[in-house]
């Protein structure tokens, strides 16, 4: 699957981060002290499933089911999760 992130890892938003839909921007945003990030459609679909309950494997499976026409979506989802982990927007739950 990926050498950086395990399929059975449960991921959640980092402490004090908030994720919400913004009507004015027609998109999802991540909010945190001193900043905000507007997520594009694909990123929003991934992060909205990062809820501290689902595992990485479950998130991948859900995205596959939701977007059956997207080729190799697993790699995209994992890349997004790795980016978000690297930026500390999300964290692996202990």
């Amino acid at each position, binding site marked *: 699957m990926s050498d950086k992130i395990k399929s059975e890892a449960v991921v959640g938003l980092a*402490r*004090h981060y*908030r994720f*919400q839909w*913004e009507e*004015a*921007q027609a998109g999802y*945003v991540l*909010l*945190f*002290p*001193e*900043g*905000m*990030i*507007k*997520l*594009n459609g*694909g*990123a929003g679909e991934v992060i909205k499933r990062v809820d501290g309950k689902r595992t990485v494997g479950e998130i991948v499976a859900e995205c596959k089911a939701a977007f059956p026409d997207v080729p190799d979506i697993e790699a995209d989802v994992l890349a*997004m999760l790795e*980016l978000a982990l690297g930026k*500390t927007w999300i964290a692996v739950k202990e």
Partner: protein
Amino acid sequence: MAQQNNGAVLNHPPKPFWLLAEITYRCPLHCAFCYNPTDYATHTQNELSTEQWIKVLRDARKMGALQLGISGGEPLLRDDIEEIVAEAGSLGYYSNLITSGVGLTEKRIAEFKRGGLDHIQLSMHDITKDINNFITDTNTFELKKKVAAMIKEYDYPMVLNVVIHRYNIEHIGEILEMAEALGADFVELANTQYYGWSLLNRSQLMPTREQLIKAEAITNKFRERVGSKMKVFFVVPDYYSDRPKKCMNGWGEVFMIVTANGDVLPCHSARVLPGLEFPNVRDQGLEWVWNESPTFNKYRGDDWMKEPCRTCPEKEKDLGGCRCQTYLLTGDAEGADPVCSLSSTHDVILQAIEDAKNPQLASQPILFRNDKNSQKIISGDLKDVLAPFHALP
């Protein structure tokens, strides 16, 4: 995939993602580096009411405002912050109380938590009681530590803001250690920018280049040690860079400020600029102010630029810098920011850097931000101090 620029998203047409509510100019502290207008005392008697603030929050939210800073002065001097916070929470703002900590009690912080306040940004000044109390002209050192503990106890992200100047820059390593000991999540080391009171006190506050280089090296070393558990922002003072800052991410691009008396400004110190009329929420709707008002359109984009900015290959990077700084220091609001080494007025910055090497402590006493000094500035008693500037800072 995700886009970020100084923490703010750029969108077209521009939207006021960041709303700063400078809810009162009253303040129990008298910080020598305060960016508030030196004539703030004219705006302490006509503050907006609770209802007026609530309307501002609602209207701005409809326009896409998302990040809300509740600032001042000291916002806690108003007894309706709880109501304002609760309204912000129900509207879906990500809200931030920017405070000195004076006036924060268990009862109030519990109320803020219930109302949905997202974080509290606490100002800290130094590791020593002496310098904390000197630069703020108050006895607040112990109180700040108590407030920091309270913020932690209520599970708020601990965001510390430390304004850096000559009196504390040599303590930057110890300040970072103190922040770590307090359990800070975010620390902003904000080198003083010279507006308002800090401009009046510039010769006293400005560190030397050597001090700055050392401070940045210490900060980088600290970052390496703590890793991602604490985010440290080091806001570089623009006087020591070759290019100006992209002030406010562009005029009327993402920021909107409503001041204590209801004036709507595109940046903190825009009132210094000549020939602009600032709309007031008592008379005008925010939608019109943001989209249509001559003031918000005045320096939007780059049509207003003159040479050398107009044809500069880097103009998109900094949009010519800060209009307020340029006017205050050169008298030409449309010129290139004097911070830029390509600006014909760059020598005023070089002179200030030179002056920082020779602080004349005895002959130029610090002017603390207080009502008495503000009144003196308004009445013209301090003309000599203001002489080098082209407007009242």
